[in-house]
């Protein structure tokens, strides 16, 4: 039985490796760092695979590890300043002269908001799953998501980002 959970997890990892890399890269913004994060997450996940209950869904469980590793990467290496501490890069809200492309605008959000946006719109996760991945409750996810969407609307000038 353990065998099958472990096999399932391995299959899941191999199948979705590019998704993991993209998400890791979107946070660490460095190719080697993203590879490190993906590798470390896989090693952690597999060595903890026995703690994974059969009924539990693999995706949020694995993404939680991946997200923690991505976030920890800053803490360990200080190779990049997290965006939330670099206010000079953030476009002044409501500056209508510099409209941003939506994709570029996401990078201007703070780390937690970026993550929620990517999980929701690029990884197609349900809000409940995002709550599991980020380890906060559903209402917090919702309020962060709406706050992030409002910021994106200001940054891009687009009204209908979320219908």
């Amino acid at each position: 039985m353990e065998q099958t959970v472990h096999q399932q997890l391995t299959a899941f990892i191999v199948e979705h490796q590019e998704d993991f890399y993209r998400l890791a890269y979107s946070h660490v913004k460095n190719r080697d760092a993203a590879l490190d994060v993906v590798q470390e997450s896989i090693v952690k996940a597999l060595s903890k695979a026995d703690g994974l209950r059969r009924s539990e869904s693999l995706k949020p469980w694995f993404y939680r590890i991946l997200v923690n590793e991505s976030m920890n990467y800053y803490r360990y290496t200080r190779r990049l300043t997290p965006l939330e501490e670099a206010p000079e890069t953030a476009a002044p809200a409501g500056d209508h002269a510099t409209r941003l492309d939506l994709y570029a605008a996401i990078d201007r959000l703070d780390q937690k908001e970026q993550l929620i946006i990517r999980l929701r719109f690029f990884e197609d996760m349900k809000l409940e799953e995002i709550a599991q991945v980020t380890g906060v409750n559903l209402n917090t996810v919702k309020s962060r998501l709406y706050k992030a969407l409002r910021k994106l609307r200001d940054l891009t000038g687009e009204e209908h980002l979320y219908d």
Partner: protein
Amino acid sequence: MTDSWNKAREAYRHTPIPEELAFAVASAVRSGSRRRRRLQAARRGLTGLLAGCACFVLLVNASPTFAQAVSAVPVLGELARVVTVTEYTLDSREQLIDVRMPALELPENTDLEQRINTEIRARIDQVLQQAEERAREARDAYVETGGSAEDFIPVVIDVDYEIKCQNGQYLSFLLTETETRAAAYTEIYAYNIDLEAGRELTLRDVLGSDYLELANEAVRAGIARREAEDPDASFFHDEFGFTSISEDQLFYLNENGEPVVVFEKYAIAPGYMGMPEFTIALPAE
């Protein structure tokens, strides 16, 4: 979903995927599975120990004859154990270090206990010091060749131990040091202790005077079997191949008390084979 989202999603999908990803994932899957087996083994070891204790207590209480019988047996293995004395994490520009330092508790033989523990401590200190030097050199080289010190990825060092065999008679554990830079490199030290005799074990002690032939035969057979069973397995067969175990051959005892010889990476097989291990069956008494 609006067009903007579709475009953003498209841009995200086009994040370039490095060629090495598949390889990186495969090697992580391998080492993850290995670490998991190790954890499982450690857990099994612990349950065995607990079950043993529970049984013991129960029997002593249940039968006065048994209690008498037990008191006649020298209680050897029950008290010897390996404990974690220090566990720490260091985190600097050059390196990230995780250490779980084991120590032996051997109430019947404090001399041996002290000797082994001093050795473990000295070895870990030495390993860390060397690793630190290497990390600093690597960083200097990186900076000299034009890299920025900020971008240097620290060397990750992991010192850990693993109990392989613990019974009334023997205690066998491995100390491992893994250093990860571009690739991971692991060094293993083994401690095999004969609790009754109060000294470290040799292969001769376990296998008898024919130990060399027995071990060499087992390794040769093991190589042949592995190559026959697994098309991906390969060992060197030219002058780099296996000829004989060495004087100070690295080995540990498995849970059945059988010696398992371990070869360094690249010693007898290509690097992807990792550190090959071969179990040697005990000669029939």
